[in-house]
C-alpha cells in the first residue's frame, strides 16, 4: 500500500473518532442530574424569572440536548470551548494557562522515566537471570505497586521536610515572580530570560513530582527494553558481531541497542500521553497548577464546560499520538507496506 493511501486511511479513522469523543464527553457531562442553576446563580437571581431565563439562554439550557450538542460542536470548530462556570473565563484560555505546567511536568517525568527505564532495562537484559536482573525487576515491581499519592507523601516527607534538599509543593517559590512567559515552561522561560535564580527554584520544585510521575513509565519502559533487547541479542547479526570478536560493550551499545529501541520509542510516545492525564493525583498533592488539578476542581464543582473541554483535549491528544504511532509503524513494519 502506498504511503499516501495508508496515511489517508488512518486519517479517515481519526475524524469519526474525534467526533465520537466530543459526543461522548458532551453526553456524560450533560448527564449531571442537578440543575446547574441552583449552584451557579446567586440567591437574589433565583427569585427573578428573567435572570433564570437569561442564564438558561446563555448556557443554551433552554434547548434540546441534540441541538445544544451541535451548537457546542460548531463553537468547538472555531476554537471556542465555552466559559468555565467556576473560573468565569473561557475554557480555552484556562487550558492555555494550565496545559504548559502539565506538559512541563510530563516531559521531565518522561525524561526521567526514559533514563531509569532504559538503564534498568539494559542492566536487566545484559545480566539476564542474575542478581542485577532480579534486583532491578523487583525494584521496579515494587515501585509501580505504590499508589502515586503514597509515594508523593513519602517523597515530600523525606526530601522536603526531613532533609530539606528540594522545594515543597507548588511550581515556584512564592517570593519569586514568574519568568516572562514565552513557552509557559518555567524552566525554559527562566533560562531564556537569563534568570538563573528562578531557574534553580523551578528545578527544585519540579524534581520531586517529575520523578514520581516518571517512575510509573520507567517500569513499563524497563520491561519493554529488556524483552526487546533480549530478542535482538538472540538475532543472527549479533551472533555474527560477537563471532567477529567485538567486545560485549560494543555489541550491546552499538549494534543491539539501536534496533531494540524501536518498540521502546512507541511505548514512550504512548506513556507520554498517559502522563499528561495521569498527573491528576501528582498535581493535587504537589499543588501543581496544571490541567489535572483544573479537571479535578471542575469535576467537584460540576463545571461541565471545563469537564468537556479537558476531556476532549486529552482524548484528542491521545488520538493524535496514536495516529503518529500508526504512521511511524508504516516505516517500521514492512508488513504494512506489503499489505
Amino acid at each position, binding site marked *: 500500500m502506498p504511503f499516501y493511501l495508508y496515511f489517508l486511511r488512518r486519517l479517515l479513522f481519526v475524524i469519526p473518532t474525534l467526533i465520537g469523543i466530543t459526543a461522548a464527553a458532551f453526553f456524560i457531562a450533560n448527564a449531571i442530574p442537578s440543575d446547574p442553576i*441552583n449552584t451557579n446563580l446567586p*440567591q437574589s437571581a433565583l427569585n427573578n424569572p428573567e435572570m433564570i431565563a437569561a442564564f438558561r439562554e446563555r448556557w443554551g439550557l433552554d434547548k434540546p440536548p441534540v441541538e445544544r450538542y451541535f451548537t457546542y460542536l460548531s463553537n468547538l470548530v472555531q476554537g471556542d470551548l465555552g466559559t468555565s462556570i467556576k473560573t468565569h473565563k473561557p475554557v480555552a484560555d484556562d487550558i492555555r494557562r494550565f496545559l504548559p505546567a502539565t506538559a512541563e511536568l510530563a516531559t521531565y517525568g518522561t525524561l526521567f522515566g526514559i533514563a531509569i527505564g532504559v538503564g534498568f532495562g539494559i542492566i536487566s537484559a545484559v545480566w539476564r537471570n542474575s542478581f542485577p536482573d532480579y534486583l532491578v525487576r523487583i525494584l521496579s515491581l515494587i515501585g509501580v505497586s505504590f499508589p502515586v499519592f503514597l509515594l508523593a507523601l513519602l517523597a515530600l516527607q523525606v526530601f522536603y521536610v526531613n532533609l530539606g534538599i528540594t522545594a515543597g509543593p507548588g511550581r515556584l517559590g512564592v517570593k519569586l515572580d514568574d519568568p516572562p512567559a514565552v513557552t509557559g515552561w518555567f524552566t525554559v522561560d527562566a533560562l531564556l530570560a537569563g534568570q538563573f535564580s528562578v531557574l534553580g527554584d523551578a528545578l527544585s520544585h519540579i524534581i520531586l513530582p517529575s520523578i514520581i510521575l516518571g517512575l510509573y513509565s520507567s517500569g513499563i519502559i524497563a520491561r519493554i527494553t529488556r524483552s526487546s533487547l533480549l530478542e535482538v541479542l538472540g538475532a543472527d547479526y549479533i551472533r555474527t558481531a560477537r563471532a567477529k570478536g567485538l567486545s560485549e560493550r560494543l555489541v550491546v551499545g552499538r549494534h543491539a541497542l539501536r534496533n531494540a529501541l524501536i518498540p521502546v520509542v512507541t511505548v514512550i510516545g504512548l506513556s507520554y500521553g498517559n502522563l499528561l492525564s495521569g498527573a491528576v493525583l501528582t498535581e493535587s498533592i504537589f499543588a501543581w497548577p496544571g490541567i489535572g488539578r483544573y479537571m479535578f476542581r471542575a469535576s467537584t464543582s460540576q463545571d461541565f464546560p471545563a469537564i468537556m473541554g479537558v476531556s476532549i483535549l486529552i482524548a484528542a491528544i491521545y488520538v493524535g499520538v496514536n495516529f503518529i504511532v500508526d504512521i511511524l509503524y508504516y516505516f517500521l513494519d514492512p508488513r504494512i507496506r506489503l499489505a
Partner: protein
Amino acid sequence: MRGSFLRKLPALLLALVLALLISTTAFAQDEKVLVIGHAESTDSLDPARGYTQTTGIVLKATYQTLVTFPAADASSIEPELAESWTVSEDGLTYTFMLSADAAFADGHPVTADDVVFSINRLKAIKGNPAFLADGIASVSAVDASTVAITLTAASPSFLSLLPNSAFSVVDSEAVKANGGTDGEDDAAEAYLNGTSAGSGAYILESWEPQVETVLVRNAAYKGAAPHFDRIIIQNIPEPATQKTALEAGDIGLALDLTSDQISALKGNADIAIASGPANIIHFLLMNRDESIGGPVSNPQVAQAIRYALDYEGYKALWGGVAPGTNLAVGLAGAFGEDKAIQRDLDKAKALLAEAGYPDGFEITLDYPDFSFQGVNMNTNAQKIQADLAEVGIVVTLNPGDLGTALDGYRNGTQGFAYWFWGPDKLDPEDFLAFLPGGKVASDRTKWLAEGADQSLLDLIAQAKGELDPAKRIDLYGQLQVIAQESGAFAPFNQPDIQTAFAATLKGYVWHPQWLLDLALLSE
C-alpha cells in the same frame, strides 16, 4: 550523536549546579516581603459583592471605611475617613465630616461623592453583603466633604455596622471608568478583582483565585506607613502544608493551623503562637421547607438533634466553648456554656419518637470540604455522623467544593448542612439573622416570618427597636431561649483562634471584625 551528548553532559551538569547555587544565594531582598499561608475563601474582592473571611482581610488592607474599631476589639467607634460625625435627635440622620487627609492611591482626595457612590452601589448590586445596608434609606453629599446618611428607623447599632468591609469607600471615578455604576448594570467586578480602588494601606496587585493574592504598599496612604512593601497571601488549603511551609521558613504567618499542630509547634523557638477566644460558630442548619429538609424540617427533630450532639467532644477537638445559641459568646447578652444545651440522648430519642421517627431516619449532610482557621470540617462532619448515629439518625456525608457548597447554602437549597458563621455585626442584633425574617433563617433555612408565631415576631421587633441596654439584653435572652427550643439551627462549637508565625513577626492581633489588619504587621 549519543556520544556528543555524553561529551556535553558534564558542562550541562555544571550549569545546573551553578544555577542551583545562584538560586540559593542571590535573592535580591531590598523589599520587605511577607508571605502568609491561608486557606483562601475569597468569593470576590469587589466590596459590594465579596463576603467571606478572606475577602474581609484583603478589603481591610486595601480600603477604608467611614468609621472603624480599635486595633484589637470592638469596644468603641473610632474615626477613619470621617474625622467626626453627628446624629440627629430622632436618631435617623447621621452626618459625617470627611478628613481632608484621606486620598486614593493615585493621590486624589476621598470626597463625599465617593462615599455616596459606594453605598448606593452596595445597595443597587444586591450582592451578598447588601443586606447590611438595608436600614439605610438614603445617602447624600451635603458638600464635598460632608455626607449625610438617613436611616429607615433609628438603630442603636448603626455605627458599629460601618467598619464592615462592605462599606469600603471606592474611588468612584476609577470604578465608573471601568464599567462601574450605582445601578443594577454595574460591570466593575472584574476590574475590582484585579486591582483595588481604595485608600487603604495596601493596593491589590493581583488576585489569582485559589493561588495567591498579592498586595503592595500604597505610597499615597496617609496613615502610619505599613512595614511590609509586599504581602503575598498564598492559598494553602491544607493545614499540614501550612505548618511545613512555616517550619521551612517559606511563609511567615500561618492562619489555619489546627490545635494539634499548634501544640506540636510549642517547643520551636523560631515560631511564635497566638491563640485565644474567637467568634466563629460552627453549626448545623436544618431547612424548614419539608420538600428540602425532609425530617429535619420538623422542629422537634431539630430539637432532638440539639440534644444528640456531643458538645464536650467538639471542645476536646478544637478548644473554645460550646455556645448557647448562634449569638457568639463575647457579644453582649450571649448565652455562654452555663446556659448551653447539654447532651441528653434519652431526651433526643424521646423527641424523635414524638416527632414520628422512633427508629430515626436517613439524611445527607452537605458541607464544604474545607479547613477553616484550623478547624477541619471533615473531622467535625464525621463526628456529627457518629453523634447522630447514637439516636438512630443515619447520616450520609456529602463534602463539596467550597464555592459550590457556598452557593447552595446561600441559595437555601441545602436541607441539612454544616456551616460556620462569623458575626456580621458585633452587636446582639447579629443574632436576628438566625430568627424568622433574618438572612440565614429566611433565605437559607426557609424559617420564614410568614407563618411564624406572632409573639416571636413581636419580640424580634421589640428587640430591634429597644435602646435601653439592660432591656435589650433581656429581650435577646428571651429570643435565645426560643431559638434553643424551636430554632432551625444547632450550634455546636465556637473554637479558639490559633495562629502561628515566625518569631520575628510583630504586631499580630486577632480582630473580631476583620480578623487581621495586615498594616499592623512588622518584623
